[in-house]
């Protein structure tokens, strides 16, 4: 059984429907990447899964349970954490406070988890007392991911983790993502930087116009000439 299974998800904002019936799945231990042109509904799909956008029809099953009617707060408790593409930190709070907020639903002593995050992202330790709004773009992205990891999630949803980062940093971010995956966390990514993302992915989906187009393994998508021409920039 798949860890996450979204089937025929229809969702949108107000009167506009963005997703017309998208189905994806993530198995335990996998890195799965969703690629596709701008406005195809990649981010909306992420938001529909975590409960920020209402799922109109279709189902989202996480560990066998339908989560499509849950509030985001309940989804998070079930072990599914999400990092939005932008505005993904609390800028007026310190780095440490951001991490504490990430652990909001934990009732145990989570200080060791903060230390683990500082080990994973040493940059964050150095800026622990700094306002998060003053961090650099790369540090913010690390903090956003660390915040989501505070709950020891089973599945992590990352919306364009490399957006707006310098080329050198992009590589580091992907390294870290691979490292997180090695600790047993499954990942679902949306990426503009499709080539690099697919290279480390087990599987990938191509979304277009709010519908599934292609599903295949990461390397196969990379070598698919049509995908290459349309979505990977030749």
């Amino acid at each position, binding site marked *: 059984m798949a860890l996450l299974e979204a089937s025929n998800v229809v969702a949108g904002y107000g009167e506009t429907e963005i997703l017309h019936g998208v189905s994806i799945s993530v198995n335990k231990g996998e890195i799965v990447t969703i690629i596709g042109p701008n406005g195809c509904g990649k981010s909306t799909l992420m938001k529909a899964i*975590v409960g*920020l956008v209402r799922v109109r029809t279709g189902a989202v099953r996480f560990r066998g349970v339908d989560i499509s009617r849950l*509030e*985001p*707060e309940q*989804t*998070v*408790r079930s072990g599914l*954490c*999400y990092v*939005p593409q932008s*505005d*993904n*930190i*609390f*800028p*007026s*709070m310190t780095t440490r*406070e951001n991490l*504490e*907020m*990430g652990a*909001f*639903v934990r009732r145990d002593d989570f200080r060791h988890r903060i230390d683990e995050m500082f080990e994973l992202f040493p940059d964050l330790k150095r800026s622990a007392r700094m306002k998060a709004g003053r961090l650099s773009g790369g540090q913010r992205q690390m903090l956003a991911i660390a*915040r989501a990891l505070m*709950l020891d999630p089973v599945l992590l949803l990352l919306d364009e983790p490399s957006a707006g980062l310098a080329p050198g940093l992009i590589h580091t971010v992907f390294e870290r993502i691979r490292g997180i995956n090695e600790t047993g966390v499954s990942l679902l990514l949306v990426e503009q930087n499709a080539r690099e993302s697919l290279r480390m992915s087990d599987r990938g989906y191509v979304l277009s116009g709010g519908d599934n187009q292609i599903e295949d393994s990461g390397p196969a998508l990379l070598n698919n000439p049509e995908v290459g021409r349309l979505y990977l920039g030749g």
Partner: protein
Amino acid sequence: MGFLPFVKLGLVANGIIFGSVIALGAIGLTLVYGILKLGNFAHGDYMAFGAYVAFYIVDGLLPRAGIEGAGLGPFTFGFPVLIALPLSAIVVALGAIALDLLIYRRLRQRGASTAILMMASLGVAIAIRGLVQLIWSGDTQHYPRESRQVYHLPMDVRIPPDGLFVAIVAVILVAGVYMLLTYTKIGKAMRATSDNPSLALVTGINTKHVVWWTWGIGGALAAIAGVLLAVVQAQLLPIMGWKFLIPLFAAVILGGIGNPYGALIGALVVGVSMEVSTQWINPSYKPAVAFAIMIGVLLARPHGIFGDSQ
């Protein structure tokens, strides 16, 4: 004093006292504004309602239990006001939470725009004022009081003891709010929600509790601000809250929306400016001075004196 030798220090002192009343209202208003994205036009009327609830306790309830009095120590008011202060804060805090459950929560769930939320708060403001007038009439009232000597300080500064009381209560409450926001889990969650509401949601923060705490704190502070305003002005009027909206919003905008520390500074700036302005212009223009400061800030630093000037 070397700076601004032409400013009367007594007016500055009055301004600080007045500013600390504004601060108590403005901190609650800015928290609600930042966290719920609601510019609450009823906030002034929460203040007025708090002042009148205290009046009912002091004037109607406590005398029946044989508790009466005025002129406690150096102050014009009596011990009953000290009892009424926390009670009124609780009543208004619960009332603010109840109004959220009844009105604003439903609107938020429907995804109503900020304009609709503000419109509803205008309705609440009007209704509260009507209710206050209906119960307590539109006439001027005041807490039982005895007249007292003002303190004479050097440099021709005169401070009424009541003003000192107001400033001390404000300092204690502001410190309490600071501790809450800095050190408690719910306080941090409130700041997080104010910073980034949708991220707070997906972080798992219990936004329902955050909303309750926000209204609770905002309502309690408003009630106390209302009582203190009635003490320093030595009168209660149903319109006192509505009239207070301009200085309140001026302080909030000055400090940057959602920033409680900014609201504190903004309130002191507005309070002192309003008082000091009376040295040159007609005192009844004080609300217009607050408005002028607000417009000036919007021109020069649209995101408040501490915000980024983008």
